[in-house]
């Protein structure tokens, strides 16, 4: 699975493994073992940046408060069930209003005011974005993929964005069609993409790695397959990525790749897709200049390898039904060339 191959396994901390072992215990105790059993999932409880980290801490506070109150409620209920279970037709009176007001209103008020204050602090912290000079990445939501550009850069990529580790990066969000929502659970809570507006959020990762993100606002037929990847890497790798985005695509090296390029540029592909530095400059589908290096095809629909790529080109509708790429009338003889060329674009 591409995500896993690119995830830095050593970053999985000892505490995470410890939590993993704790799982049965916590399951028995509270029934809620959260961080432990998420494993490699893009879990909000396995945060890798300051935004999600803050929210994860807030969650654990809320979680333990909930456990405490739940125990209180269950204790009263159990007491009633154990000691008050007699069939007795006598109707009783008496109004223990003090109990109801203290347990039902007083204690909750104290708790709610406290967590409201903490929540307010976190809300303010999440609004504390990057400095004006920080890198800015422009993300545009399409049905059903993400267009990614670096502010001021010429080129675009899709469904993948890179950030330097340890720095806050501004992300500017627009949508080309309907509402989407930009969500990287391990890095930052959601921000919706609003038609007719520009929204901003920021990303910050404190350790290198690949973090899965996904559209969280229902956006039509293929909402399910609208994932993306945030790659947090050292600053020089990030700079190299920015430079690559501005540069023309890699030139074909082998004969097969050259034939594939010709087929791409002269065929129907170029009507919708751009490959920088070639005659293909369609603007409908994603820019494919670095398609060979991406983590998936179809915004997380299938892994990016030769077989899946061939299947996708032949008929994207079987892979991701309802997406806007029609089946391609590619000569079977040309398909391996096309695949070879596209795989070489890194």
């Amino acid at each position, binding site marked *: 699975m591409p995500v896993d191959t690119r995830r830095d396994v050593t970053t999985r901390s000892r505490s995470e493994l410890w939590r993993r072992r704790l799982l049965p215990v916590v399951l028995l105790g509270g029934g809620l073992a959260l961080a432990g059993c998420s494993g490699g999932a893009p879990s909000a409880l396995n945060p890798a940046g300051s935004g999600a980290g803050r929210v994860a801490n807030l969650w654990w506070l809320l979680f333990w408060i909930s456990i405490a109150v739940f125990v209180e409620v269950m204790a009263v209920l159990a007491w009633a069930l154990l000691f008050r279970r007699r069939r007795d037709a006598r109707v009783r009176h008496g109004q223990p209003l003090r109990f109801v007001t203290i347990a039902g209103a007083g204690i909750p008020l104290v708790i*709610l005011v406290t967590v409201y204050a903490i929540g307010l602090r976190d809300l303010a912290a999440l609004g504390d974005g990057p400095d004006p000079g920080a890198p800015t990445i422009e993300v545009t939501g399409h049905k059903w993929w993400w267009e990614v550009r670096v502010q001021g850069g010429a080129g675009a990529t899709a469904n993948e964005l890179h950030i330097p580790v340890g720095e806050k990066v501004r992300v500017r969000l627009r949508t080309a069609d309907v509402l989407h929502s930009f969500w990287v659970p391990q890095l930052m809570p959601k921000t919706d993409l609003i038609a007719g507006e520009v929204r901003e959020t920021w990303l910050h990762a404190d350790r290198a790695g690949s973090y899965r993100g996904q559209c969280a606002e229902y956006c039509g037929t293929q909402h399910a397959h609208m994932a993306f990847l945030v790659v947090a890497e050292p600053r020089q790798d990030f700079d190299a990525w920015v430079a690559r985005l501005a540069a023309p695509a890699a030139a074909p090296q082998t004969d097969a790749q050259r034939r594939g390029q010709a087929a791409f540029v002269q065929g129907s592909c170029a009507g919708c897709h751009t490959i920088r530095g070639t005659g293909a400059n369609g603007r409908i589908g994603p820019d494919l200049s670095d398609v060979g290096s991406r983590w998936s095809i179809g915004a997380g629909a299938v892994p990016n390898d030769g077989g899946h790529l061939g299947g996708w080109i032949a008929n994207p509708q079987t892979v991701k039904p309802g997406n806007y790429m029609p089946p391609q009338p590619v000569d079977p003889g040309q398909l391996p060339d096309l695949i070879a060329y596209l795989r070489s674009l890194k």
Partner: protein
Amino acid sequence: MSTTAAPAPGASRQDLTLLEEHWGERPSLRSWFSTVDHKRIGRRYLVTAGLFFFLAGVSALTMRTQLARPESRLLSPQEYNQLFTMHGTAMIFLFATPMLFGFGNFLVPLMIGSRDMAFPKLNAFGYWVFLLAGLFMWVSLPFGAAPNAGWFAYVPLTERVNTPGLHLDVYSLGLLFLGIATTAASINFIVTALKLRAPGMSLNRVPLFVWAIVATAFMVIFALPALNLDNAMLFLDRRFGTHFFDPGAAGNVLLWQHLFWIFGHPDVYIIVMPALGIVSAVLPAFTRRGVVGYPLIVLAIVTIAIISFGVWVHHMFATGLPRLSYSFFSAASSIITIPSGIQIFAWLATMALGRLVLKVPLLYLIGFIVTFVLGGFTGAMFALTAFDQQVTDSYFVVAHFHYVLIGGAVFPMLAGIYYWLPKITGRMYHEGLGRWAFWLVFAGMHVTFFPMHLYGLFGMPRRVYTYRSEPGWDAWNLVSTIGSYLLAIGLLLVLIGVVHAIRRGRPAPPDPWGGDSLEWSTESPPKPYNFPVLPEVHSLHPTWDEPSRESMGAGATEDRILAEGRRTLFTSELDGRRERVVEMPEASLQPLVLALALLVFFTTMLFAWYPVAIAAVVVVAATIGVWLWPPRRPERELGVST
């Protein structure tokens, strides 16, 4: 005190014959279509809402089957998206509210000691509209034209350019059509509770269920217009090219969300509130005491109804509005937990201080408390903007609102079904079958929805027709699916239990539980006129107090018997003082005709046959004109001066 025997009716045999003559309906096809009896209409609401629940439940099971494994191909995305939209829309609009209105219809006149609703014909009309609007929406599914953009139908996805076809026209017209029924029923509930309470039932003696229904009805009155306007604008945008939601022409997409949630959040409480009323109504019979803290529960009902109008933006915490403006809604969303907490602890105190009689209805109430409290915790978490932004639109939300809506509404409904089944059908249910059903429903509910908290936190978004295999998603999804089958079997057992009770159940006595409210002083099932003698209420628990019970026995004053004609008594709004005797309307086909004319209107609007639609409007106007046409009276009786 023992209350198993109904008091001997204070009306004479002659009076009873007269009452039967004026209120009874001879069984015939015509009477089936023309009835205005609130009990028959209430039963129909319950059955019809049950049918829609079944359809929406089957949709959910199909979806859960699709989601059992990653990358399953049982359903196409187009099919899945219609199913999840119809599931949500039907559960909210066609099941939850109508089901609870069904309870309200059957019970409110009985609980307040009246002979019918304030507007019996309007009541019948509301039912017919509900039935036809529900069918209007469900019929689109087999044609592949069902709504497919979620029950929230956010623009611009729902604009014609993004979703062509009839899907969203069915949605907007269907909800506008249904809105007529909901509004009519709400006005009816409010007026009934204000004017038709038995003498002596001042505001401090109104049963909590009636408080809850009235508060709900007020919420409908003030919340539903926002949804209606939203849908009207959506329809105009789609059909006639207006630009309300088009940012390219001075429109705005967030307007939809604001209006939708100005309706949508109160609607959550519109669903839960009457269910909480059921809890307060059922509890006394099985704890052998009145609910603790009556004024505090009234307080909770009133304040929840009001505050629920000021929390809507917490559904929009991720839309990127100014953070300060979020805080006002965050504050209200936090504080609204307090009245709910008061209610929970009032019920707990009732149980702790009572004597528990552990029968099926009480089991459901205990299941309700456990489940609803858990849903309440996650609800309070959503009040915090920062946390909400992380988990909104993930499966965590799906877990939360199923805890709240199944725990908070379905469990009390099930308690209510078992509790009032003897009153509604005149038959007792089978206790053992009921217990089996309860444990399956309870276990199924938690097995299905508890894991959703987990894979929501693990990053799984909601409303996806399939998902890539991720550790932490696959296994838990399978658990959810297994749970959903358990839940379905449990609910099937409930249905079997009801059918069994109706066909084979023991005949029910008037008051099998020793309940405290007035419906238990009528026969099971109640006579068409409900009470041979309208009661005079002396306390909050009239069936438990001697003077109130005696008021229905011998020596009743004539103004509470009212056997000469189809009549009932008006009392004053706050203190329940006698005001005057009024004539109630007879059975009529007008409600059905009116509802059918509206069906023609909405169907022809859907297919753009506008001339027919205009003709339907004329029929609607003419029917209303005839319906309300003043009966001719002698001039002297009218009081005309020349």
